């Protein structure tokens, strides 16, 4: 009997040699006359174990990792494909036992990411066999208003950063009459330390397609666009193929599953501009223009793409919808804390020992996440600072690590949950250098529309350089404070308005780094 072996094919697994592992496995098995069926699945999100090879047994899948091509002969010698040994432990140092029993997975609460890594991402049959398209099936029996009500009742808030209630946004689009409406998926995922959108798209593309289709039914939109960053070439390939398969199977097109409803979907690539993650800049870009941020109002929900009512939602907001429809709004709302309902996709990144995707109900503490899941730093040195929520959010010192992961709790201390990125730094970090980078990033990525953002960030870099060089420190620190204030008050969007957050947090919590002796002193 042919044993099924899984070797993931997401960007992270590939970046660590998964293709070489797969090729070696097939070659060695052939040479040994062993029967094996290779499945290129998506990743389960445990970046620290990639490439994570799994072998299917009567008692579920067994995990081996991280595997490199050179490990394959030894693993086969130890009985990787051998029925007897599979029931227990092969005794090989890379053998991790049943995948789902690993505490790193077992302690997660995967609703949105329930399927990643289990399936071949492009197989609709796999998707259906793992509960896929149950949400759409339900949705096709409901009225648009009922669908919007369901999303409202789930308490889902946008996962792109601003945490705006998704159902209310959909209601506005539903209520605005127009000849054409659009669903736009924000897949620009520009924040450093975030990759959950990428995992969803590369490992479970039909989930996003299903979520967008339901959104289309809910608001009466027949055309969707996925605005994908150009830094994700693999996601583009996978989404394009998935859309073609979904069309062929009647899940997209003029008559979705014989319902008479139409929904068309197209992937559009960004072009390396962080600001195009901001929704109005994104819409300008989709229209073929420079990504200049628009004034609001009008809201995109009323005048969005090509002036038509448009839902702009993050990948994860849309990807949460199939669960809400399949299991009911209450099942989603039952999870979480306060006004943060459901689960949050956290991404452990940077200097972390066990990095990857950790989906948890809102409310877990940051420390639990970094210690129990992350296992501390990769370098083994003490953890010193952590930036949660992307480049526009604060650096948190140890005194804030007990905060619960909840939108309101973070906002109260001037921090943000954002898109769930958690970037860890050990004690070798120079926080003045990080503050400089925040300003430099803003200078590079500003759309240029407002002076406080464009010029303020340029000045910010210069002022921090002078502080670090020991020139008139007191005066320059005061000037930096004023600059931050000007940016906060006078910027049209969060790019200029929030860049001061990481800068100020570095100044407040790590003041010594701005007073280091100057080299050569």
């Amino acid at each position, binding site marked *: 009997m042919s044993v099924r072996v899984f070797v993931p094919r997401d960007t992270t697994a590939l*970046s660590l040699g998964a293709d070489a592992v797969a090729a070696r496995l097939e070659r060695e098995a052939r040479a040994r006359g062993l029967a094996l069926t290779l499945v290129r699945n998506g990743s389960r999100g445990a970046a620290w174990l990639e490439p994570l090879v799994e072998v299917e047994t009567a008692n579920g899948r067994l995990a081996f990792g991280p595997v490199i091509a050179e490990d394959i002969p030894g693993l086969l010698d130890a009985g990787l494909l051998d029925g007897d040994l599979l029931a227990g432990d092969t005794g090989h140092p890379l053998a991790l036992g049943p995948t789902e029993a690993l505490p790193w997975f077992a302690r997660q609460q995967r609703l949105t990411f329930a399927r990643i890594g289990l399936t071949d991402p492009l197989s609709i049959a796999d998707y259906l066999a793992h509960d896929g398209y149950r949400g759409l099936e339900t949705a096709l029996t409901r009225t648009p208003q009922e669908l919007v009500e369901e999303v409202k009742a789930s308490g889902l808030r946008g996962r792109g950063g601003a945490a705006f209630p998704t159902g209310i946004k959909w209601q506005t689009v539903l209520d605005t009459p127009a000849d054409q409406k659009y669903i736009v998926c924000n897949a620009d995922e520009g924040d450093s330390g975030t*990759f959950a959108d990428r995992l969803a798209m590369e490992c479970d593309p039909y989930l996003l397609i299903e979520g967008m289709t339901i959104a289309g039914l809910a608001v009466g939109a027949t055309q969707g666009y996925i605005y994908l960053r150009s830094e994700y070439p693999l996601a583009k390939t996978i989404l394009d193929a998935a859309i073609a398969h979904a069309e062929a199977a009647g899940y997209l097109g003029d008559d979705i599953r014989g319902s008479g409803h139409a929904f068309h979907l197209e992937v559009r*690539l960004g*072009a*390396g501009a962080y600001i195009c993650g901001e929704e109005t800049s994104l819409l300008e870009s989709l229209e073929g223009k420079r990504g200049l941020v628009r004034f609001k109002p009008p809201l995109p929900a009323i005048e969005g793409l090509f002036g038509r009512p448009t839902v702009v939602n993050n990948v994860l907001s849309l990807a949460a919808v199939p669960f809400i429809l399949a299991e009911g709004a209450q099942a989603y709302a039952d999870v979480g804390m306060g006004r943060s309902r459901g689960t949050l996709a956290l991404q452990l990144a940077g200097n972390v020992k066990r*990095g990857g995707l950790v989906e948890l109900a809102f409310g877990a503490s940051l420390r639990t996440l970094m210690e129990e899941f992350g296992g501390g730093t990769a370098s083994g040195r003490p953890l010193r600072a952590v930036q949660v929520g992307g480049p526009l959010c604060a650096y948190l010192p140890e005194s804030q690590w007990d905060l619960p992961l909840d939108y309101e709790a973070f906002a109260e201390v001037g921090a943000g949950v954002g898109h769930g990125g958690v970037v860890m730094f050990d004690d070798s970090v120079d926080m003045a250098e990080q503050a400089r980078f925040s300003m430099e990033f803003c200078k590079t990525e500003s759309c240029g529309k407002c002076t406080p953002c464009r010029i303020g960030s340029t000045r910010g870099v210069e002022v921090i350089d002078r502080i670090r060089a020991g020139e008139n420190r007191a005066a320059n620190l005061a000037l930096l404070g004023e600059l931050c204030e000007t940016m906060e008050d006078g910027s049209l969007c969060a790019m200029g308005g929030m860049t001061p957050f990481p800068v100020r947090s570095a100044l407040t919590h790590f003041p010594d780094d701005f007073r280091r002796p100057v080299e050569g002193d």
Partner: protein
Amino acid sequence: MSDSREWTPQAIQAEIDALKHKPGALLPILHALQDRFGFIPEAAVPLIADSLGQTRAEVHGVIGFYHHFRTAPPGRHVVQICRAEACQAMGARPLEAHAKASLGIDYHQTTVDREVTLEAVYCLGNCACGPAVRVDDRVLGRVDAERFDALIDELQTRPLEVIA
């Protein structure tokens, strides 16, 4: 460089014609041109402007706005180093210094043998396994100086030419 990457006005116009009917066609057209020719030739600007009914200044403005679009031909390979925070936490700064020094070029420059163009990038979505580097369409993880050198060696090793 292979012939198919050499641009001609006809080849440019063919790419434009294949996409100009799309709503918001400009970015798809620019991507198609860069994918095919490695950059956006200056000669494409008036052709695009005419086909889309826009001014040349508008087209120039869009090309200039986006970091991704190049207006000069790159080397045989484009190597992008992630400069963003998660990779910084794992040593992206020393890596970029090493890359610039060993290749003898800065960002947006190409080695004299025209093998490698170096670019900066802000996040490749491989943030749990930094520092991350992208070579053409391949992303690599945990790239230190040694791995970087091995990568460059691999890129510069061309198959021996068979003498007929």
